[in-house]
Structure formats: structure tokens, C-alpha cells
């Protein structure tokens, strides 16, 4: 009985030590709209087109259509055109229907030239579903300008 009380008292004091340490340690709350944390590199946002390492002005997409064919939810439409005097096709439009995308990453995995990557865009929100039919080419051009 006495032993129980003593052991109990010691454990209670230990517990109080834990909470007072928490009391004096810095808060971990992030005041979300006013401050944000860095997104982890493995975060899966919508896909984005990556610039060609040799020519940062262009994407390295070769319009092979692997992503379009591999997409399990048929969310991708790739349109290319053959410009005069060039050997390869160039990308004209890359439509990603983000409303059906399940972030599986098969497009990123199968791309033979690694032209796709996940973006860190974590908070897309809108009232219209048309907003989420992304044209990744347009988005790429926008990023390039910035």
C-alpha cells in the first residue's frame, strides 16, 4: 500500500515534468493563412511540365503519348504539332483533367524523357469544375516568364 502510494507519487511528478516541459517549449502551431510551412519534396500536387535541361525555354516533351495511354482515369489529352524544319514533334497543348486525376503518378513514372513532375500546388480551390481542366503548357509558359 505504502509502496503503491510512493511509486504513484513519483510517476505523477514525472508526468508533471513532461507537461511543464511542453508548456515552456515553443508552440508548433502554424497560423495557416498568414504563414505556411514548406511543402515536402515528395508531395504530390498536380503534374507539371519540366523544362528541358539543355534548353530551359522549352519542355522536353516529345509528344509520345505514353502518359495519355497510361493514365488509368483518362485524365490526360496531349496535342502536338510538327513544326517545319524540326525533326521532333513539339507540344501544343497538354490538358490535365484534375477533377478525375488520382495522383497515382503513372504519367510521371512512364514518361521516357522525364518531362513531367509533381508540383507543390497544395491548395487549389474553386467553384467551377472547368477551372481544373489544366493546360499544363500554358502553366509552363507562365512559370517561364516568372
Amino acid at each position, binding site marked *: 500500500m505504502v509502496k503503491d502510494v510512493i511509486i504513484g507519487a513519483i510517476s*505523477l511528478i514525472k508526468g508533471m515534468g513532461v507537461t511543464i516541459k511542453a508548456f515552456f517549449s515553443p508552440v508548433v502551431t502554424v497560423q495557416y493563412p498568414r504563414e505556411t510551412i514548406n511543402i515536402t519534396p515528395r508531395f504530390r500536387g498536380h503534374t507539371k511540365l519540366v523544362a528541358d535541361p539543355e534548353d530551359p525555354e522549352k519542355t522536353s516533351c516529345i509528344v509520345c503519348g505514353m502518359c495519355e495511354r497510361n493514365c488509368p482515369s483518362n485524365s490526360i489529352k496531349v496535342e502536338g504539332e510538327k513544326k517545319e524544319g524540326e525533326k521532333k514533334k513539339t507540344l501544343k497543348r497538354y490538358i490535365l483533367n484534375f477533377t478525375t486525376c488520382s495522383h497515382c503518378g503513372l504519367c510521371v513514372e512512364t514518361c521516357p524523357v522525364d518531362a513531367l513532375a509533381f508540383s507543390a500546388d497544395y491548395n487549389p480551390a474553386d467553384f467551377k469544375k472547368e477551372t481544373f481542366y489544366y493546360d499544363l503548357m500554358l502553366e509552363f509558359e507562365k512559370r517561364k516568364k516568372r
Partner: protein
Amino acid sequence: MCDLAAIINIIGKETARLILGLIGVLIVVVVNALVLTWVERKVSGHMQKRIGPKEVGPYGLIQPFADGLKLLGKELLTPANVDKPLYYLAPVIVFIPVLVSFIVIPFDGFLQVKDINVGILVILAFSSLSVLSILIAGWGSNNKYSLIGATRSVAQNIAYEIPLLLSLLPVAFMANSLSLRDIVEVQRQGWFVWRWQFFAFLIYFIAATAETNRTPFDLPEAESELVAGFHTEYSGMRFALFFLAEYTNIFIASAIATTFFLGGYLGPVLPGIVWFFIKTYFLVFVIMWFRWTFPRVRFDQLLNFSWKILIPVAFANLILTGGILKL
């Protein structure tokens, strides 16, 4: 000013002092409750590494006022089939012991509404009245959770009132007085916590935590089982009165601990009232600290702890103190 002097002349100095004191007490009660709700939420936040209230005013200091305004503006809902007289009476009764207890607490050497020579008896007698209001509230609410909460509260308060009394008695023995002011003055030679009464202090503090229905003894209002216990059916200002009484009870319990064991308003350099509030609020902080550390005890554990450990130890302490003083 002249009018005031005339009024004092008519009603007598003692009555004037009492009236002024009561007004002061009311102010202290309300301000204390406002401060404590804010402190409670801040402490809760930081113990969980959160921030706590911060939006309303600097550091969220205006938050209690916002809450108070909200409660004032709410409808006073009376559920169907309640026992109306009891239901209405409970929030009023809960406030009486709180106000009376404040009268005898010495905030400073001269700052005391009235120094009654049985001061501690007044506090103990009236603080057991708050159980009555809890029982009435639970009974009158026509709600199973309220009733269970109320019955638990009664059992708990009966069990813990005894060690509470027994832990204060040895101090009264040593001070040779029941007046709170005398008890503080005796401690000029040293606080009673360090003068043989450490165990009495521990027992008192545990029992006081139970008396004020705070965690880990918060079975009467165990949220996970009983919604909010006895005040489940109360809304608006009626709920606010229970809330106010709860926080004031915490303050009173801590104030008595300060007076009996920690030398009350005695302390170097700073004025007495500051020392009194520092000590009292430290004890209040400790009670909040308990809340975020200890899980709620089971009901049998609660009663066993009181009857099998606290009461025998308190009795032994009482007999020992009495014997030594007699020698």
C-alpha cells in the same frame, strides 16, 4: 465626498466597510473569473504546444469579454419538464458560498472585509453549500447525465470534505486560532508548509482539487461520459453563473492554501496583496497543470483514495500534531 462622509456617519463605519468590501468582492470575483478563463485557455494551449486565444485583442486578452457578451446575449432556455423552482434556484445558490467565503479571506494585513474569529469555519461551512446547488441543479434538470453528475459530486464532496477539514485543523492547532488573519500573522516565524505541516498541505491541496471538481477528480462533469454533468441543461447567463462559481471556487481553494500554508500576504519587498495574489495564482496554475497531466480517476479509485489513504494520513497527522503541541 461630503455626502459619502454623511452616509457613513448615518449607517456606521462597520456597515460602510462591509458594503464597500462586498462591492470589492464582487469586482474581484468577476475580474478573477475573466482572468482565469483566459489563463486556463492560454495554459491549456501551451501545455499542448498550441497558442491559445490570440485573435481578440492583444494576446487574446479581450476574449473573456467576448465570451461573456456572448453568454449575456444568449437565450435562457428552459427545457421541458424541469423542476422549475429548483432549476431556477440552483445557479443562484451556487453563488452564495462563493461570496461569503471571500469576506474572511485576508488579502493583505488590513485588506479583509471582516475578520471573524471563526473565519475558517465560515469558509468550510459555506463551501459545502455549493454541493447543495450542484445537487439541486442535477435533480431539477430532468436529465440523466445531470443527475448522475450531481450524485457523483455529492459522494465525492462528502468523501473529500473530511480530509480537507482534517488537514486544516492541525494548522489551527499550531496557530491557536480559527481567524485567518491570526493564522497568517503566526506564520511570520515561518510558513506552515515548512513547519511540520507539509503532508497537511499535500492532503489539503488534493482534497481541494477534488472539492472544486477539477481534473483528475472531475467525475461530476466528466465530458466524455456525462456531456457536462450537472450543468448540461443550463444555457446563457445561468451557465455563466456556474462557470463563474467554478473559477471562483478554484481561487478560494488556492487562497485558503496560501493563507494556511504559504504565509498568506507575508513576503519581502513587495506589498502584501501582491504576494498574496502571486502565491494564489501559482497554486491556481498548479491546478491547471494537474488538468493537463493527470487522467481522470475511476470512481472506486476516487473514493478509495480518500477513505483509505487521505483520511487515515490526515488523522495521524492531526493526532501527532496535537500530541506534540500538548507535550
